[in-house]
């Protein structure tokens, strides 16, 4: 069943433009690819290449959310089981390192650089994401 409404897809489109513009700005000005998992990983775990710009980028991401939620109404916190968040977060982190990127690095920058690796990564994580939601919500029927 499709549930498309202007109220949801216009912010999605405009938000997508802003995300795209920020990736373009980071490449144009600093020559860097906006891959969030790679930036966060290097910031926290790479002792040889711990650069200040990564800290400021991550800080910016958090402050962006802070200013947005301070000026707009954000949807209430989604009720989820802590175990799903822990297991999910762990796999997101582990998988992003193993696969060399996440939704931003592969999904936006990599696809725009016409990387076949990124195309494969996006197809695979979309498929396993869809499969996971299917199993969790339609077979196991867990009420998240």
């Amino acid at each position: 069943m499709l549930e498309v409404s202007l109220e949801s897809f216009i912010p999605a489109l405009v938000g997508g433009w802003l995300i795209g513009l920020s990736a373009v700005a980071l490449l144009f000005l600093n020559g860097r690819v906006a891959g969030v998992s790679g930036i966060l990983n290097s910031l926290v775990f790479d002792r040889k290449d711990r650069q200040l710009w990564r800290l400021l980028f991550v800080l910016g991401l958090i402050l962006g959310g802070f200013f947005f939620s301070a000026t707009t109404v954000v949807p209430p916190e989604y009720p989820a089981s802590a175990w799903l968040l822990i297991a999910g977060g762990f796999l997101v982190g582990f998988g992003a390192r193993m696969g060399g990127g996440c939704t931003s690095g592969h999904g936006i920058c990599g696809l725009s650089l016409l990387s076949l690796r990124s195309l494969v990564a996006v197809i695979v994580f979309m498929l396993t994401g869809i499969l996971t939601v299917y199993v969790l919500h339609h077979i196991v029927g867990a009420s998240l």
Partner: protein
Amino acid sequence: MKQCAVALLVGLLFGWGLSLSGMTDPARVIGFLDVAGHWDPSLLFVMGGALMVTGVLFRFVLRRSSPFFASEFQLPVNRILSPRLLCGSGLFGVGWGLSGYCPGPALTSLGFGFLNSVIVVCSMLAGFFAHKVIFEQRA
């Protein structure tokens, strides 16, 4: 110095864009992945919108010999379709489906003050660390 200012401003814009787009709401993400249920396709417009911008402008940017504030472009060089790529992306998708969070929105929603995003970010860092311990042994 200039590069640091750029990183902060780019992060702010990215975080604002993620918040506006709906990617920071796990209910929407799970609805987007739930193609067999009440599928919510609106998040396709996030990726579509971002790719409209980057798909066109990356080409112009990369015609330059160097970035504006740095000496060279630092682009990914790996072109190999490895088992690691497939397994890693597969696991990433499972985690995304379980939690409804990917890394950018998890960080951004820390700014909303949600406990859930603290749990996800800490678990994600644990995932990075586990990968480092298992696969990135010191030579």
